[in-house]
């Protein structure tokens, strides 16, 4: 199934894009997406640790199962104001 991954700030710079449209197996969880986008397992682990996630603009835990067409936002530590 197809999902969109939104990237911001340092993550956007690291991956040199603000959005990735990727295909993942049906039943994939948020956590599993990190394995698909990271360059290696070490990076996937590090990203998992310090990134919050939102699906369709709602915060979710990383064991949530994704659905076709979901918009997954990877949210590095915030700092508005």
């Amino acid at each position, binding site marked *: 199934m197809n999902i969109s991954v939104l990237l*911001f*700030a340092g993550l956007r710079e690291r991956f040199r894009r603000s959005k990735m449209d990727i295909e993942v197996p049906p039943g994939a969880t948020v956590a599993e997406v990190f394995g698909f986008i990271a360059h290696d397992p070490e990076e996937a682990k590090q990203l998992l640790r310090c990134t919050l996630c*939102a699906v369709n*603009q709602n915060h979710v835990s990383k064991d949530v199962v994704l659905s076709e067409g979901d918009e997954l*936002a990877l*949210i*590095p530590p*915030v700092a*508005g*104001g």
Partner: protein
Amino acid sequence: MMIHIAITQEAIDLNREISSSFHGSCCGAYAWFAGVVREENEGQSVVGIDYECYEAMAKKELDKIFSEAQKEWGIHEGRLIHRVGYLKKGEVSLFVGVTSPHRREAFSALQYVIDELKKRVPLWKKEYYEAGHQEWISCHHGHG
């Protein structure tokens, strides 16, 4: 409760925000805050800050924050405008205004909204230093 939330690329006009947030004699207390790009942060000379935002979610989250503040302190009106894009030092990044019958509630709500914004709202800033380098700031190094 009236809530006005905006994310904008344009310069924040303080006079316009103040005028828009002032009206009515139902409220005895008007409390406002402006956050400004400081020329210095943790010993480094700052020339500007680039603000980035996940706008759709930021607005949702700010809406929730104001609702929480309303529930807790009964504020009558809330107004928040956050600028995004590149701001030079001295420019206003954030304006927040809160209106309530009494001042204690207005101050508590105003501080709550800003504290929660810095913790929960998907906004990021990258500082540009006079020395030439840049750095993404997380809220633990917050400047406001």
